[in-house]
């Protein structure tokens, strides 16, 4: 799951080397914290959060199979 967020984010930003994803495991849910270079924030969020929503949709699909709830958070 963490790898998936990394792949998606790295493909979208101008500075892939600055992409960091950390995984925080909860009992029933997993939180994936995504960090990108400040100038790349728009590239992973998009107008009205459209890109962030697409990332979450794809990650959710992967998570549904594992029976876990996944939250993707984009950190400032």
């Amino acid at each position, binding site marked *: 799951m963490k790898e*998936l967020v990394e792949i*998606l984010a790295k*493909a979208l930003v101008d500075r892939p080397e600055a992409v960091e994803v950390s995984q925080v495991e909860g009992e029933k849910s997993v939180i994936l914290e995504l960090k990108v270079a400040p100038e790349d924030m728009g*590239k992973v969020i998009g107008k009205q959060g459209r890109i962030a929503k697409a*990332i979450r949709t*794809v990650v959710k699909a992967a998570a549904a199979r594992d029976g876990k709830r996944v939250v993707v958070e984009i950190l400032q």
Partner: protein
Amino acid sequence: MRTVEAVGKTVEEAIAAGLRELGAPREEVEVEVVDAGTKGFLGLGARLARVRLKWEQDVGRLAVEFLQEVCRALGVQVRTEVSERDGYLYLGCRGRGLGVLIGRRGETLDALQYLVNLAVRRRVGKQVRIVLDVEGYRQRREDTLVRLARRLSEKVKRTGGRVVLEPMSPHERRIIHTALEGDTQVCTFSEGEEPYRKVVIALRR
């Protein structure tokens, strides 16, 4: 297409430097020698070689690479085929257990398609139009929508009322509009705000 200029002691070195900068394979770039350079004599009058490289990237290959990487992370294996249709690049996937790529009402498929377009556009530096399909889902869904549109238009003609369809994506709404475009008795229009915009079929006056 991306273009870079690079310099080196020789033309070959300049080309190598340009390829490194682009991250491109040699066989995909077009080389223009701007200045062949000269070694000079005993270090006097030496000039560096200068080349311009043009790289026309293969959109289909980039799309497939990205998609394969995503599928690997999702733990599914896909076979892909790329074809061109009226200005669109059509990327079809086949394999086992690909429902995960489609999602409810094609939700995941639409999200993936959007991300593939963004990722490839970033790499080639220009707008691309890629349609992603899994196991012929889009074609099947289109057939279903066209049948639905025809059935509901008959109902409207019979009852004289109007029918409001469920919320659909812009692409799916267009399929409904197009299906009933030539019908002289009914008209179609959309109402509501995204993502809950719906098509309405009503009698033409």
